Structures are given as C-alpha cells and as structure tokens.
C-alpha cells in the first residue's frame, strides 16, 4: 500500500492550501468522522451561489488533509452542483472506476485509497463538510 502514501499526496497534505478560518461573515459546517474522531470545519463566504472565499480546519490524517487541500485549490467560483460532481468523481475512483473527464486532476492521488475501504471516509469527509456548508448557506 505504499502507493497510497505517494509523494504527491504527502506534498498536497503538507501544502495545506486553504488551512485556517475565515473572518465573519461566513457560513460554517463541521463534520466528524465517527470512527476516528477526525474533524473537518469548512468556512465559506458566497457570492451568489459561488464560493468567494474558503478556509478549512482539518484535524485529520494526511489523506483527509490532502482532500481538503485539493478542494481549497479549486474553491474559487465553486458551486454546490460542481462540488457534487467532484464528489461523484471521487466516489467513482473509490469504487475503482474511472472518474470521467473534466474533473480535478489532483483527485488522481486518491485512486490507491480504493483498495482500503476503511479510509474512503477520510477522502470524503472534506467534500461532505463543504456540502454541509453549502446547505447551511442556503438555509440561512
């Protein structure tokens, strides 16, 4: 399973794009991974239905950190629909299928996680936290 911890993934986690908190005004969502206690908080500020600013606090493993970093890289202008499509691509990868064209190239680093079911939730947690933040924004 060494390929799970390929250099690209470790670098992405270390880069920690978007780490931190946003100032108010912001909408936030915090999600736990109940099995390991990991926790991701996503802060966003929206411009219409698009992300204008995003920051995250990711107290988690490198796999989850890398996922948060990937999201942060692509956050500008992101919509809830586009996020859902990316999560769909992630889920395809985790099933060992092709992600389909047009998705974030960095998602590829998560391909080796497919074999390790217990870690799927680590990749998905930041996506789900951002999903929750979008929902919270809509509700408010």
């Amino acid at each position, binding site marked *: 399973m060494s390929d799970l911890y390929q250099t690209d993934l470790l670098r992405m986690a270390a880069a920690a794009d978007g780490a931190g908190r946003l100032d108010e005004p912001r909408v936030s969502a915090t999600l*736990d991974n*109940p*099995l390991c*206690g990991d926790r991701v908080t996503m802060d966003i500020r929206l411009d219409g239905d698009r992300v204008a600013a995003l920051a995250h606090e990711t107290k988690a493993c490198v796999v989850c950190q890398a996922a948060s970093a990937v999201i942060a890289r692509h956050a500008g202008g992101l919509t809830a629909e586009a996020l859902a499509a990316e999560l769909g691509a992630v889920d395809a990868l985790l099933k060992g299928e092709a992600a389909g064209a047009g998705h974030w190239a960095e998602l590829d680093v998560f391909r080796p996680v497919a074999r*390790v*079911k*217990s*870690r799927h939730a680590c990749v998905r947690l930041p996506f789900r936290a951002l999903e929750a933040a979008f929902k919270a924004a809509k509700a408010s």
Partner: protein
Amino acid sequence: MAFDVAAIRAQFPILDPAAHGRPLHYLDNGATAQMPQAVLDAVIRHETRHRANVKRSVHFLAEAATEAYDQARDAMAAYVNAAGADEIVFTSGCTAAINLVAHSFGALLKPGDEVVFSTLEHHSNIVPWHMLAKRAGVVVKAIPVTAEGRLDLAALPKVIGPRCKLVAVTHVSNVTGAETDVAALVAAARAVGAKVLLDGAQRAPHGPIDVAALGVDFYAFSGHKMFGPNGIGVLWGRGELLARMPPFLGGGEMITRVTLEETSFAEPPRRFEAGTPPIAQAVGMAAAARWIESVDQEAAHAHLQKLTARLLDGLDGMKKVRVIGPTGLQARFPVVSFAVEGAHPHDICQMLDEDGVALRGGHHCAQPLMAAFGVTGTTRASLALYNDAGDIDALLAGLDRTIRRLTA
C-alpha cells in the same frame, strides 16, 4: 427434476447416521435448524483467516473482517429484498430485533397509543409490548384466532382502531404453521396509518422474502432457525422509519461524538448496532442465506408439502389425536402441532426420543394461543428441507406406540 433429499442430508454433519450411535429424526427445526457444512466452513474460514474487529482498525485483517461484515449485510439485504443494505440491522436474534423496535419505535409513541399483536404470537412478540405498555402507557390489543389457528381477519376492524400505531404479527405461526394473510393486515393497518412488523422467525428458513412486495415496515428473524449460527438475527426496517428512531443500546460504533456530558448518534444501521457486532455470526447467517438460495425453491417447497401431507394424513388416521391448526396444505408451512387426549406432550416427546424422533412439546412460548385452544401444550413436528419420508414414518409409528402406552 426430483428433489435429491439424500444429497441435501449429506451436507449436514449432525445428520450423519454414525454421529450419535442411534437414529436421529430431527423434527424440531422450528426451535433450531441444523447447520450445513457450507455455513460451518464460512465461519471457520472467517475465524481462522479474517478475524478482527470491524470498522475500528486499518490493518489488513480488520479490512478483511469489515469487508466480510459488509458483504454479510448485503447478502441479508438481498435475501429480504431491502431497498438497501442500510436497512439491515444485525441483532443478536429475532427476540432482540423485536425488543429493539419496542424500545426505539416505542419511544416515538404516546400514552394511549395502541400496539396490536395477536393471540398467535410467540412470547417474543408479546412480552416486549407488555413491557412497553408498562413503561410508556401504550395500550396493547390482540387479534383473536379462528378455530383453525389463523388470524381472525373479521376482527381486524374492531381491533385495529384510530389510535393504533403498530401492528406486530407473526408471518408464520410457530405452533400451527399458518401463514398470515399479510395483504389484509397491511390494508387494515394502513387504513389507520399504523406501521406493520412481521415476526419472520418461522418464515425465514423457507426461502427469500420480499419485504417490498409484502408492504410491511419491519421484519425480524433469527440466524439459528435458518441453518445459520446462534447469537445473530436481522431487523429489517424501512429506511425512513429507522432514520426517525432513537437508538436502543448505547456503546461503541453507534455514536458520532461522545463527551462527558452527552452523546450524538450515528445514522442507521450503525445507530442500532452498539458495541462489537456478532461478526462471524453475520458471516455465517449470510452463508446460510446463500445456501438456502442455492436450493431449487420450487422443488424444496414441493418436497415439504408432500411430507406435510404425509404427516397430516397419518395423524388424521389416529384416534385421540387432534391437530391444532390448519389441517390442509393451503397457506401453511411445514409446522404441525397436535394434542393427544390423555397424554402430555412432554411424555410423548420423551418416549419418541427413544426412537430418535426429536419433537418439541410444551407451550412453544405461545401460552395465549394454548389458552385459546384450551390446552397447556401441544406436541409439534417442524420440518426442514433435509427431512424425508423416513422421518415422518418414524414419527407416526412411534406416536402410535406411545399413545397406546400412555393412554392404556
């Protein structure tokens, strides 16, 4: 193609004629069915190759154990035709499954709300409701039975009233073998907005179940009665209903976060599976489901109908014997109870044991039904697909001798 009962029997080590140094005609399958080698092998393989706790660790054994447990859930979802694996809650048995509903669904009820069961029920589907009644002021009512030991459908409108929230009834009686007319029951329940729970303990061994077609809300059954291990059962629940129910047992695996002051709970099915689940048992139960599915269902059904007819015919010819329950083959499963004038079921069973015929005598955990029939117990033969004509004939011959001895 003829049903090859010898080939089936050969898969059950305990039925090996040499195993006990005496004959064995095992007709107590309603209590516990025997285990085929395929199920035993699945359990052994799991314990010797994939044993670990599930969902908690990331090493390769834990991955394998988790995968096995998830696949078991998938297999059980397929067996009952659930909308998804998340509708399958593993419990320690049918009794535990019904208690789960009594607590978790019961927590949604208010004093004065009604739960309807029937006079036909196994104690497992009565006592939890009595306890709920005491705990929460819920009112229990019972659907009466007909002289044939079936639900008295004519009474439904009277028993299932506007405050009824749940109708909890057996799918197949463990005493009479009668199959419940589920459609009529569901219609009556739906008319007042009540949910329906079926106790499938006696139905589950006889092939896949279609909860979607049945149109019910909960379905409970045990592994050990369907050729699987002890200590495992399934509660199937409609997804949106499970989602509304609070947890029952508290512990590891069913939480999202715990502090010293409070706990927040996970989604179903995890919410209802506190602590380390019965992993090897789930693997075994799934193997049992697959084993049942591997048998030609129609041929098995025909085989059991034939044996049931042979048994009913034989009993019909005996003076002093009264069948408790349907005497025909319509809408019934191969469970046959009878009373013998002047002879006690335990004495009958004990004497038949001398011939290696394993029956069950007593109230069968269905005392209200016994009361309805005016007996304290019956003698019961319950068949599984490995039974053959020799088993039935041994029963009939032994019974004849026994009656003569006990009622001389």
